[in-house]
């Protein structure tokens, strides 16, 4: 099995999730755990940094869909940053750019949260 890693860190009031490796049906539960923890801690402003992610499957995409509503209901959001082209193409093909905000750099995404206050 290909490797997958999740790391959560706080940047101010925003939580940044670094995802690394292959995100598919088998590794998706790890990311789900990370989101569950954030929700338990009432941290709803989330940026997912895709810098080290090399592959995402439909089950991986499903994770974001499962949690975004909760975040938005609590005046937070899930924003994406540092996505490689091949990964972005998958999001793009599905029409995610209409539903989520994508940023080139993590700081831009974090700032976007902070601008809103």
């Amino acid at each position, binding site marked *: 099995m290909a490797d997958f890693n999740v790391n959560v860190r706080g940047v101010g009031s925003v939580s940044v999730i670094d995802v690394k490796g292959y995100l598919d049906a088998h590794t998706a539960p790890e990311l789900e755990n990370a989101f569950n923890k954030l929700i338990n801690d009432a941290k709803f402003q989330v940026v997912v940094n895709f810098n080290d992610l090399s*592959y995402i499957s*439909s089950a991986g*995409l499903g994770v974001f869909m499962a949690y975004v509503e909760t975040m938005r209901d609590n005046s937070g959001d899930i924003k994406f940053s540092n996505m490689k082209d091949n990964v972005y193409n998958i999001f793009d093909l*599905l*029409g*995610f750019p*209409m539903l989520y905000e994508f940023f080139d750099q993590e700081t831009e995404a974090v700032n976007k949260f902070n601008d809103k206050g």
Partner: protein
Amino acid sequence: MAATIKKINNTKKLENTILASIVLFVFKLVFFSSDSLIINIINEFVILGTIYLWIDYVIGFVKPRTSTPLSIILNTGILTAIIFFILSVSTSFLSTEIFTNGETDYIYIIFANLLIFVFIGCVTYIFAAFKELSFYRQKTDKSKYFNTLVFFIIITGLSKSITKIDPTLDFIENAFFVVTILLIGINSIRVSWIAFLIKKQKVYLLVIAIVLSILFGFNYSLTIGDGVINQLLYAYSPGLVAFLGLLMIYGSIYFGVIFFTTLFHLPTAEAFDRKAEEVSSLMDLSKLITQVFDFKELADTVTSVTTKVCNSDSAWLVTKREDDFELSSVSNIGFVEADKITTSLLEHHSYNLNEVVTINDSPIKIRIKNDVRTFNFKAIAVAPLKVHNKNSGFLFVARKRDFSFDEDDIKAISAFADYAAVALENAKLIEESLEKERLEKELDVAREVQYKILPDGVPKIENLEISALFVPAFEVGGDYYDFFEISDNKLGFVIADVSGKGIQAAFIMAEIKGVFESLSRIITSPSELLIKVNEILIKSLEKKSFVTAVYGVIDTKSGKVNFSRAGHNSIMLCSKGKVEHFTPPGMGLGLDSGDKFRLVIKEMEIQLDNNDIIILYTDGIPESQNSKYEEFGYKKFEKILIENCDEEVNKISNEIMKAVTIYSQDKSQHDDITLVIFKWKFNNKKSGEV
């Protein structure tokens, strides 16, 4: 069968015994007392024979009861008491004078005979009991000693008869008597069965043995006296008197030996009991392991047995579930308390215990909520449950009394812990195999559903060659394609990919098939149709599930293709040696509740030329991976299309599949693969008109 034979045997023995008794009785009526040597000798042999038959018959009763030696001893005691009663009480109301001229008084003779038979009955039972007891639980053959004893008893009896006739020969009798006593002594030390009694029985036996030893002694002293019964017996048969006397000595010695042996066994009785219990508990446990697959039941047995055998007050079993420890069973302690003690002990002591550890601290203090509760356990032993050097839990044993666990306890505890570990492992393996079986069954169902949902073949349409290929992955992936013959010149087609896998994906497939099939007959516009499908699916899909699809309609007269895309991969057109991707805007189904979906989706129309090929596929093709996790991609895909675009559709399809299979040969197929190809074969005459 065997039982009936035994019964017949017994009946026959009884008949012989009764017959012999009657012979004896009649013989005695005729010659009650005689001075003739011959008659006396015949008398002794008749009695000997009768007693032999009696004993042979009685042993049949005693033998099956040897497993409970205490009941035999108790019966023996009762019979001895009867003899004692007759011997001591009869003196008071029987007169000796009658004997001197008793030959004429038949009533008296009959009475005496009956009394004698009572004696014979008692004596034979006692003798049979001694015989069986001395052979009970003997590991080596000691019949030699016993037979010798019997032989000397008979000789002594016969010599007593000789003494009766010629009193000067009494030294013979005395010599045999002494030898017999010695043999009695040798036979009396076979009492190893005492060791196997439990402590309670030993105490009971101790009391009975001393009473009986004394009682037999009394009886013996009465038989050598000059009482009425003695005279009667002596007149009846001197041999019988000798036998009775010897038997009483035997009893006195035997029970004396039993008394002292039991007395010496008593201090170790408890330890012996415990060992015996330990052995039988381990046997029970090993039986349970092979029979019981329910771990809970086994855990309960382990804790309750451990408590009992290790002389402790409480025991509990903790098992490892993932990274946490979980209480599996408690014996004589509350769940909460056991849990608290476990947590506090495991905090202080390493989780990687490799052998039994005993803790003999002062009373263990455990904090529950706010109050410090003290548990009065003076000693606690912790044994790891190990299988293949992996620790799967702990067995705790606790004592309130001030004894620490000794070596034997620790051995027993670790044995129980080992059993629990094996059982735990078994239970786990069974659970895993059941779970695997369940998943496989589920996958079978999902595959079956998928095959039933997909169309049987491809429609036969003029001007259009169609090929459809579907290769399922091991875990059903949720690919779907279908054709709808809407009207004479309209063919609807759909290709879709449900996110997720297995039975869940298969059910979503079933749902979207129904939705597409019904909507395709009502809505002609592909984008309108997909908007409607999205509205339906958003209500039924789970948040994290979505479906990508392409829906289109081919005009089979004009070669016009209208289609829309909902998040699916591009539609490819191979025309005149070139491949073109069409990706009209459109979101996946089930992502957005409506407005955005409607806003984004666009429709596209292309006009097919002769021999143009339209390729629809799911991501299983471009995303199939080799062992280095590299994807097949679009370049290879396009290359095969260009090389084979003049071939017929099935050949193209096979070529693509072949390339994908070779590319990903080192890796199992991860996702379903679906490939639908249309080739426009327009009649040349009509094509000229366009």
